[in-house]
């Protein structure tokens, strides 16, 4: 091909590229789907909820909810919380955990009592520390006694 021919071919490619691109990438869009009445109603409800002042109030109360949930799960903060964590005059009930389903409550009644309610058991204040310390002393004494016996037996054998 002559240089003129090459130039003409290149020009054709450049000029035709736009048209070719349009032909290849053109997608026939599907006709818009008709939304079902139920879907429309749900969408409307979602919009209303987003704009609803009650929903906003619920969101502002999230801190209390998180606090109560964390106390329910016995999650301790890494740092000692400041005294300003809880608003002045916040009812003590706000510190108690949120209500759970019946099944989880059944599970909790089997655990040591940690929250006050009518007819609650006294908290589990039993501790094993004295028993552990005494066991330790007993084991040491037993070990020393065995060693002593062994020494006595050895000395008898020597005699």
């Amino acid at each position, binding site marked *: 091909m002559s240089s003129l021919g090459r130039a003409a071919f290149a020009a054709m490619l450049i000029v035709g590229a736009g048209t070719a691109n349009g032909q290849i990438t053109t997608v026939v869009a599907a006709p818009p789907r008709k939304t079902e009445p139920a879907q429309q109603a749900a969408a409307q409800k979602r919009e209303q909820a987003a704009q609803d002042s009650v929903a906003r109030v619920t969101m502002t109360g999230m801190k209390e909810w998180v606090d109560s949930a964390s106390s329910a799960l016995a999650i301790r903060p890494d740092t000692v919380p400041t005294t300003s964590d809880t608003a002045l005059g916040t009812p*003590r009930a706000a510190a108690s955990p949120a209500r759970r389903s019946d099944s989880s409550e059944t599970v909790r009644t089997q655990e040591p009592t940690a929250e006050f309610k009518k007819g609650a*058991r*006294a908290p589990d*204040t*039993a501790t094993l520390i004295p028993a552990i310390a005494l066991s330790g002393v007993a084991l040491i004494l*037993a070990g020393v006694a065995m060693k002593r016996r062994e020494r006595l037996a050895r000395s008898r054998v020597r005699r």
Partner: protein
Amino acid sequence: MNSRGTVSNALIVCGALLLIASVASIARAAIARDAVRARWAEIEAGRAVAGARLSTSGARWSSARGTPVARVMIPRLGLDEVVVEGVGDDELRSGPGHMIGSALPGDSGTSVISAHRDRHFHALRGIAVGDTVITDSERGTISWTVSRIRVVRADDPALDARATPTLMLTTCWPIRYVGPAPDRLIVEAVPK
């Protein structure tokens, strides 16, 4: 070394480990108690600076678990402890715990404060009806009179909700029991 020698050495080592574990636990409890007392001192200082009770000043209390919420004193027995919120293992290590959901001392209703018998409430072995208990909290300083002392089984539903201010101090019973004590001592007090 024969097998007897090995066994005796093992016994001594195990015993020493148990002793170290219990001493470490007691030391940790002492450190936690000091931390809570320091925190309470900060609160007291804040109150002094405010020049008024916290309930009427700008300072605020926290009801998070493990934070100090009150102080309980029994002058005759020399008991003086800072009460923290919650009665879990971590809370009871640092001091007597205020049972979540119960009233604060001074509020109407039952206020439950519990502690280990071998630590903070060891002095309760000498409590008697008529003794004075003093509590200090965001509700102010209140004097109580011990009105009733009872021993119940550990699984008895012994804590009843009252409409009037009632203070209940609980701990394990018998005080000098080795192992998990089977009973609970409940000391009830009413405002003077």
